[in-house]
Every structure is written in C-alpha cells, then in structure tokens.
C-alpha cells in the first residue's frame, strides 16, 4: 500500500487546488444578472429546449462505445500476456494469436457492416 500513498498525496493536492479555484471564482468575479447570459449559448437564437437527461444521443456513439469495450477487454488480456510473455513463449504466442483472431472476427464484421463509417 505504501506505493499508493504518494498518489493520494498528489491527488489531495490537486483536488484542493481545483476545488479552491472553482470556489474562489465565485468571489473574485463580478455578479451582474442578465437573463440572456444564463441561457444556453446557441449563436444568438432562442436555445433549443433540451429534454431531461441531456437529449438523445446518436446511436453511432453507442456503437463506438461498445467497440471500445470490446477492444479494451482485449487490451486487458494483452497486457499481462505481454509482461509475462518470456515465460510462455510459443504457447503464449499461439494462444494469443487465436484470441486476437477471434476478436478480429467481430471487428471484421463490424467494419464490413459499416459500423466504423461515420457520416
């Protein structure tokens, strides 16, 4: 655990700084009320009302998120494999190639079906 204590120290410091900054700006800055100022910015026209929960998000982003998850998981397995690769050698290589190939199948599918195309 000692390895992580310094991280905590730095994190506390950074948090303190950030919170302080956010807090202080409330006092340092002026306060002049103006209705328009509090509206969302939309190039000067009346802002579009946003539905509760931030509106609807294009599906494309979800696909990207899903893909990211898939590959992140792949990375999770690649890291320990890489670190201990020298112990496993050829066996490790073969197994990992199989693993990558399997994930690659999904990847090829998504690519061919246009999952990676943005418009």
């Amino acid at each position, binding site marked *: 655990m000692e390895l992580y204590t310094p991280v905590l120290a730095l994190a506390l410091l950074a948090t303190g700084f950030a919170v302080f900054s956010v807090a202080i700006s409330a006092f340092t800055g002026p306060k002049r009320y103006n209705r328009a100022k509090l509206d969302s910015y939309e190039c000067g026209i009346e802002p579009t009302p946003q539905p509760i929960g931030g509106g609807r998000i294009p*599906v494309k982003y*979800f696909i990207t998120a*899903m893909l990211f*998850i*898939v590959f*992140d*998981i792949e990375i*999770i*397995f690649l890291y320990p494999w890489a670190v201990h690769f020298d112990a496993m050698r050829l066996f490790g290589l073969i197994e990992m190639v199989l693993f990558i190939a399997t994930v690659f199948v999904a990847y090829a599918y998504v690519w061919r079906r246009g999952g990676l195309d943005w418009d």
Partner: protein
Amino acid sequence: MTQYVVLSAILFTIGCVGVLTRRNAIVVFMCVELMLNASNLAFVAFAKQHGNLDGQITAFFVMVVAAAEVVIGLAIIMTIFRTRRSASVDDASLLKY
C-alpha cells in the same frame, strides 16, 4: 482482509437493492454491473487471503463478461429506448398474463 469482503458485500447489496427498486433500465443495469464488480472485489480479496491467483484471474474474466454484458445490454436497452422514448422498466409492460 475482512473489511474488503464486508465492503464487497455492502456494494453487492446496494446493487441488488438498486436493481429491485430503480425503474430506469440503464440504472438497473448499472446496479447489475455494481454487483459484478462487488464480486470482483470479493474475488481479489479472497485471492489475497488464500495466497493464490485464481481469484485475480477470475476478476479478469468477470471484467470480460461484464463488458460483453454491457455491449449486449446497451444494444437491447437502446432498441427499446428508441422505440418508446423511455427507458423505464415500468413502461415495458406489454407482456402480461
């Protein structure tokens, strides 16, 4: 190590209660993920306690499974959401006897 197990139990319970009480499908789903991660915590804690790696390896697999679950769950919830414009579990009520 006990405190980690207790923490994991608490997290698990929170997730469980969340699933049972929350109505938004996404939130329910997040609670399920919380349960999985509580299990992960327990696995790692026990792994440390028993001094073997099984628990940690399991945690890896659980992450994978959780990820797969996220992908599938998100897809299903999205379809429903797009159809109904609502992610509330209560709104999904066509299937009744």
